[in-house]
């Protein structure tokens, strides 16, 4: 008997809670550090981006309407499920892109899991830290609360494949935003595996949508989409980012990009309640105090 033949995974996009091929029917080869073919990823299209935004839009209000405790539990659940699949993630990371040795891949996976745990705990605390009562000069109750901005488009950093993606995604969804993620073009597989984890972790369908494919094709429709409320362009190159930001300006879309310090993915600086705040709007409510 020969060795057992492995069953290879088909890496699909994750839109509205379903794993789907592109409506365009296209795919593109993803190769490992040594140039070996790892898989054929979906080459998403403009229409896939559109569908993802629609899914994100329809999921957002429900997600934001969950209690903060519930969102925190779900983010923690993501960490739990990832933990149980640490080996798979580490292997995925090690095979991807420029590659890294096994211990680096394991470290990245562990850091990504810990990042979920860190943000899970913020779900019912960030409003306390970022908002609060304002002592106005008059007989009014006045309270500011951070609220999710809505649908956030995330252009995920290229590499490494997992930790940067989690570092940008977790602060976006913890407050109740939904996300359309353009996965790393070169190493999209970890993103798809993450999607599988999310699907198993009670994250409602449509809260996170992951589109894979070519950035040049996918960034413009995402940046120009009027129903996208905020953009994280951390993963864009300079020129691509500038074009996207110009597109975003037409609909006054908020544009965020990680600072140099925040790109030290393993550092404390890469996680912050102010990253949650960057994808929130402050709402201030006034009410008179009278008998």
């Amino acid at each position: 008997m020969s060795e057992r033949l492995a069953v290879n995974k088909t890496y699909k996009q994750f839109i509205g809670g379903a794993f789907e091929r592109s409506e365009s029917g296209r795919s593109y080869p993803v190769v490992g550090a040594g140039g070996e073919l790892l898989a054929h990823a979906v080459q998403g299209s403009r229409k896939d981006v559109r569908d993802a935004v629609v899914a994100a839009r329809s999921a957002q209000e429900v997600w934001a309407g969950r209690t903060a405790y519930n969102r925190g539990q779900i983010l923690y659940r993501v960490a739990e499920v990832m933990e149980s699949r640490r080996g798979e993630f580490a292997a995925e990371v090690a095979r991807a892109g420029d590659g890294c040795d096994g211990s680096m891949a394991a470290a990245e996976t562990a850091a990504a899991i810990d990042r979920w745990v860190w943000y899970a705990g913020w779900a019912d605390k960030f409003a306390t830290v970022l908002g609060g009562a304002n002592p106005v000069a008059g007989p009014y109750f006045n309270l500011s609360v951070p609220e999710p901005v809505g649908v956030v488009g995330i252009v995920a950093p290229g590499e490494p494949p997992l930790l940067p993606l989690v570092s940008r995604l977790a602060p976006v969804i913890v407050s109740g935003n939904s996300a359309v993620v353009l996965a790393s073009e070169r190493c999209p597989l970890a993103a798809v595996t993450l999607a599988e984890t999310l699907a198993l972790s009670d994250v409602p369908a449509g809260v996170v949508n992951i589109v894979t494919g070519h950035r040049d094709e996918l960034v413009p429709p995402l940046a120009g989409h009027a129903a996208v409320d905020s953009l994280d362009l951390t993963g864009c190159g300079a020129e691509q980012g500038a074009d996207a930001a110009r597109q975003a300006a037409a609909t006054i879309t908020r544009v965020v990009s990680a600072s140099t310090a925040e790109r030290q993915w393993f550092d404390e600086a890469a996680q912050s309640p102010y990253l949650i705040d960057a994808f929130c709007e402050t709402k201030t409510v006034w009410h008179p105090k009278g008998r």
Partner: protein
Amino acid sequence: MPPAVDFSLDYAPAPESTAPVRLAAQYGLFVGGEMVEPASGRLAATTNPATGEKLAEVSVADAADVDRAVAAARSAWEGGWRDLPGAERAKYLYRVARLLQERAREFAVLETMDGGKPIRESRDLDIPLAAAHFFYYAGWADKLDYAFSGRRAAPVGVAAQIIPWNFPLLMAAWKLAPALACGNTVVLKPAPTTPLTALLLAEVLRDADVPAGVVNIITGGDATGAALVAHPGVDKVAFTGSTEVGRAIGAEVAATGKRLTLELGGKAANIVFEDAALDQVTEGIVNGIYFNGGQVCCAGARLLVQESVADAVVGKLRRRMDTLRVGDPLDKNTDIGAINSQAQLDRIAELVAAGVAEGAELYAPQCELPERGFFHPPVLFTNVSTAHRIAREEIFGPVLSVLTFRTATEAVAKANNTPYGLSAGIWTEKGSRLLWMADRMQAGVVWANTFNRFDPASPFGGYRESGHGREGGRAGLLPYVELVA
């Protein structure tokens, strides 16, 4: 019974004296701590919109002037302001606040002369709030370490600030106070129709010994603003004005590394439930839309009233509108002053005409408008549908559109049916409904059982196409700091 007597309330023409205001014939630019002649050599008149009379000529800064102002700001920043202990920055700001309080009457009268707003508003709201903003942010200057958990707040650098004509001094204060408190230096550009209080503020800054170049004030129009926004020496752009200009600025600033905050237009819904305190509602509606002649980005321009009380509310509103006094802004009894400019008056007139043409029913009280100047009576439109231009476009004038609803869900849908998201009003005596509604308003400021309240401690700013960033409160520091781990 004794016979009834004939008596009608006749309020005095109670014009505020213009004596405290001393106008120069011409104004230069405030750059590097002194008033300088513009390199452009160009001047433009600023007029009193209530009379059409020219008040003074102000400079029109060109690219060379902008360059000079940004260089002065840069030099002041690097030359000491960024390294000045917060406690010292605070003292400068406290000084400015006090000087504004001391010269409040002069500022109020000048604001009304240059912009046309009622003296009651400039005296009771604009100027005191401007002083309060400096006072409030002065206190933050040496407490930034307590503002952001786990992060240190470092200044950004040179801020370019472009402000509108509807609250000239107040917007200058909203922009300057947090920027300076956080250790930035500023080039401020007031609006071309209302530059005079900003130029008077230059005097205050000098009297407060604010170091030269920390605040530079340059006057001019769109071209001046564009040059300022595009200047490579600028680290941060803050703009308050129209959404159209906001889009252009966003595109200009995109990917330059400049930070950007925008405070843009609005089309706020003011939602009235049948259980509300209808007499205070009436005042709230009036204050919401006729305050500053409706030339307010957060104006409650769309009245959404529950069908069961629609007639009662509209009846009370019409009756109240009949008592509004339109006229001389310097008169202490005036409720609605002058529209800021001919261009704005034309825009209002165009949209009012569109409302009539689209089939809405217009009500305006019989009031005599002054013969000179730019005036518009308060207007109320009923029979308005959500598709009408007057229900969708920002009018920036004393024009209210009334729509009705039956359920809270419908009210939410109609209120949020706009690309804007600056403010909203909710009127109900039922606490749980109020909070349910407040949660669902896509708006940065929600006034519940009140409207158009402002305070330096309270963040202000919009969702969606009403802009991004907040002014006021701790949130108002964020646009002017770099958070460092």
